[in-house]
């Protein structure tokens, strides 16, 4: 276990370093100039050249890279070329939107998917199992922004019970308003994500229901719920956890779209804007943080999987 942990941590750090370097190179290879975002029609060639000098984007790439490396080594992500604000605190200011949004959406999705998926498998022979499965299929085919727009038009524009978008200026020091602001986005993410989770839970449950040990347990006199609880859950959990980790990671994709639909000041909207402005320090900062988060979640997912099913630990290469 310890060896495994060390190995995984080393891989995680190596991935992160590699991602950082790849990103730096990729971004600089792309055409584009942050100066363009700062100037407007009317700027003269001399002004443009002066602005480049000021931002330091006319320096040789190697120099820029070393400077950035030095900064990152001291946990300094640099300052935005556009707003001049330090990137680290800017990201920190966005996390209170993105993290609760992603986590709550994820948790709600699991809360929906586990019982529904189980039921869809358990009642596969009746009318309601396939119906639940069908609903999940439908959910899988609907784009996230559509769900968001629908919820806005029902709950915000017609029923007027929740805000249509935005995040309170006071942030979490106004907890009620913050929770209200995140309710529809969270439900949107949860609905979309649960659709794919339901399929996995259902498949895993079907596997367990058909397995020999469950039959044995039942033959030995356990009731089905008891047998499921004792044997089935653990067996079904491992593959589901593996999928969950990947799903949580990809929620970030959904979150960017959802932030756009609901006008939320999260990491996603920050990134979209930074990319269009070629604000390199901000892009690098956000990507580094999000890559780290995704890799770390994958890592934790692996770990959880192993805890849930210790056989995997023994079987590890």
């Amino acid at each position, binding site marked *: 276990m310890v060896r495994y942990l060390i190995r995984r941590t080393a891989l995680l750090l190596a991935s992160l370093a590699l991602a950082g370097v790849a990103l730096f190179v990729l971004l600089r290879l792309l055409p584009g100039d942050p100066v*363009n975002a*700062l100037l407007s*029609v*009317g700027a003269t060639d001399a002004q443009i050249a002066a*602005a480049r000098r000021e931002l330091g984007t006319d320096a040789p790439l190697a120099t820029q890279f070393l400077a950035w490396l030095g900064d990152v080594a001291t946990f300094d992500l640099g300052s935005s070329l556009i707003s001049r604000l330090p990137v680290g605190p800017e990201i920190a200011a966005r996390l209170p939107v993105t993290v609760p949004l992603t986590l709550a959406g994820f948790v709600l999705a699991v809360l929906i998917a586990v019982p529904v998926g189980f039921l869809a498998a358990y009642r596969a022979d009746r009318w309601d199992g396939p119906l639940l499965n069908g609903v999940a299929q439908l959910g899988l085919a609907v784009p996230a922004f559509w769900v968001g727009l629908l919820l806005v038009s029902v709950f915000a524009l017609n029923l007027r019970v929740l805000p249509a978008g935005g995040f309170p200026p006071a942030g979490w020091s106004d907890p*009620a*308003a913050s*929770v*209200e602001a995140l309710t529809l986005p969270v439900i949107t993410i949860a609905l979309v994500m649960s659709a794919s989770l339901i399929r996995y839970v259902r498949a895993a449950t079907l596997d367990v229901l058909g397995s020999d040990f469950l039959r044995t347990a039942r033959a030995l006199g356990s009731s089905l719920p008891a047998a499921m609880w004792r044997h089935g859950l653990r067996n079904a959990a491992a593959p589901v956890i593996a999928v969950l980790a990947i799903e949580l990671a990809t929620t970030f994709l959904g979150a960017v779209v959802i932030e756009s639909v609901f006008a939320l000041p999260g990491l996603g909207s920050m990134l979209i804007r930074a990319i269009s402005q070629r604000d390199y320090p901000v892009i690098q900062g956000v990507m580094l943080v999000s890559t780290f988060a995704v890799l770390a979640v994958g890592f934790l997912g692996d770990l959880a999987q192993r805890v849930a099913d210790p056989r995997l630990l023994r079987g590890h290469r």
Partner: protein
Amino acid sequence: MKRAWIAVAAASALLLTACGDGGESTPTDGASAIINVGSVYEPQNLDNTAGGGQGVTEALNGNVYEGLFRLTDAGTVEPLLATAHTVSEDGLTYTFTLAQGVTFHSGKALTSADVKASIERVTAETSKSARRSNLSVISAIATPDDRTVTVTLSKPSISFVYHLSYVWIVNTAAGDLSTTADGTGPYKLGEWKRGATLSLTRNDAYWGASKAKNAGAVYHYYTDATALNNALLTNAIDVVTSEQSPDALAQFESNPLYTINEGTSTTKLLLAFNDRVAPFDKPQVRKAVSAAIDNAKLLTSIWGEYGTLIGSMVPPGDPWYEDLTSVNAYDVEAAKKLLAEGGVGGGFTFTLDTPNYDPHPTAATFIKSELAKIGVTVEINTITSDEWYTKVYQQRDFQATMQEHVNDRDVVWYGNPDFYWGYSNATVTDLVAQAEAAKTEADQAALLKQANKIIAEEAASDWLYLYPQIVVASSSLSGYPLNGRNSQFFVYDIVKS
């Protein structure tokens, strides 16, 4: 099961709502009201000489920062921090007297040294102000005493006072102003939450005769027009500074709770030819293309019944406006003839560099289908705003492009042969220079009218239409600006009842 979770979701939603209702503690009307302003233009930073963009003008100009003069919503220039000014006989020396008892938000008193430093911020080499070149006529600034500033020009400039209206007088001792602010205006900068809101709070120590009529304003920023309108529909904001599409207006038109105002706009949508390159170096070809596009239909397609047709770069609000819509008016047969005169009677193909945000792609699609009727093939090349600046604006590597030009009084660009569209006509250049050197505004207007007529007749560009400037506000609001001139949005007179 499914029913169960729907019930849970509904219950939690209700619970949340119940919690939320107690939270509204902000005063709602009169001098204690906070005005919530919705906009799609978030500042990039807070300094208008460091690339703050349209958004920083909208939020801070006139509200947090003031100039020596103010460009009013009606378009006139009136004294603000400079209570009086004299101009020497030769038009080269301006002497400004500063208002008395003016202090910055930090408490420091305004002196002539601040004014000198503020002007120099705009003219400095590192200044990113788009208007920097307009002030290049300044040759010296002197401060004989604390309340007097003398500016010497290298040649007469009748627009000089107008140009001073967007020079913010800042406390230059305040340091980097890209993240903070220290001005003399009726509001202090509150908090700027990037990606969400920027708040202003009333400056109770304001030097002027009348303080702001509300307790403050919060600008809410949206990237998406639908989200912006939804915010207005759900009372999250009180006013939208400029609507981006007419379709959303349907939901406000029939509702007495909202007021739709159409003001005067200065934003023009241009089909800008690269006048240096063939075949657009021939006026006949440019005229042919202009005549082949039904601008009226385009305007209706994009803006419904809003917006105005223009025949040149000058919008109706300007003193040198003249109705030139009949020049190169829509006429497909005439267009075909002109095309033949230009030597490309068999038609030709060109690439249209189209910014990827609305309305450009829609308009480009329309132009493509219109020009097909005269045998001209349009290849639409969608580019980002970043690419536009590099490829079109700096490198001039384009055949034709589309762009919205937002500024007031920007017809003078046609007098600059080095400008991106490369329109070069010695007469026009001369007229624009003469207009700037004119002794009276009547002379200036007469000269610019002539220049304007020439560019329209030569179809230097095709001016597709003038955007409408639509402010939608809650009907309980009054005193808001309607015209969005130079993207300003003064909030100090807004009253919520």
